[in-house]
């Protein structure tokens, strides 16, 4: 009985939970991006500040796109394929680049 039910609908709602986890992560990245923009434009706009601001906004957009792509893949089938390592590495690279921006702004 449970085998039949499993193939129809996942009672643990795993794809939905994973989708929401991606949503929460984009929210966290939004908060970081807002703080980054505030730090970059603090004390009047300068050439360096504007470049850093644009870079952080671009990284945030890249993060959103990656999340969106994965969310669509999760919604497409009943038993989605595992996350691709390249996808995970791209997400981490976005985060690392934001940290590098932060480093440049702090120092």
């Amino acid at each position, binding site marked *: 009985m449970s085998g039949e039910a499993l193939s129809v609908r*996942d009672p*643990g709602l*795993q*794809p939905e*939970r*994973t989708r929401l*986890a*991606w949503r*929460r*992560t984009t929210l*966290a*990245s939004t*908060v*970081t991006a807002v*703080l*980054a923009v*505030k*730090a970059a434009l*603090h004390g009047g706009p300068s050439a360096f500040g504007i470049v850093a601001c644009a870079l952080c906004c671009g990284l945030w957009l890249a993060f959103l796109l990656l999340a969106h792509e994965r969310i669509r893949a999760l919604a497409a089938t009943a*038993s*989605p*394929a*595992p*996350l*691709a*390592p*390249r996808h*995970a*590495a791209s*997400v*981490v690279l976005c*985060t*690392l680049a*934001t*940290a590098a921006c*932060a*480093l440049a*702004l*702090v*120092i």
Partner: protein
Amino acid sequence: MIEFVQNVRLWFAPEQVREEGSTPDYRFSLANERTFLAWMRTALALIGGGFAVDQFLPDLRWGWRVGLALALLGAGVLCSLRAVNHWMRCERAMRRGEDLPASRFPALLGVVVAVVAVAMVVVVLVGWEG
């Protein structure tokens, strides 16, 4: 360290990962993915904390402010690198049917966050006038 470098190559070669062992139940992979995302949120929060220290504690002496910000940023960087590395190791262990890898990282991160928090309290209490 060498293992980490080998894993970095695997991040960009998904075919190599799929060759090993058998594909686990998709629910286990998704659970692993959520754990990865939870660590990424932690990393993002730490990086955001680095920005916030720099922004919202302007009365602190330069050294303290930059030191705290750098500690938080460093923790965020380590956390995100470790997130993808651990995700990869768990994924491979599940494919091979091995035990999931153990990790000292949560304890390490806990200690670092506690030290930064105590430093923050001391700085706010003592260094405010300085």
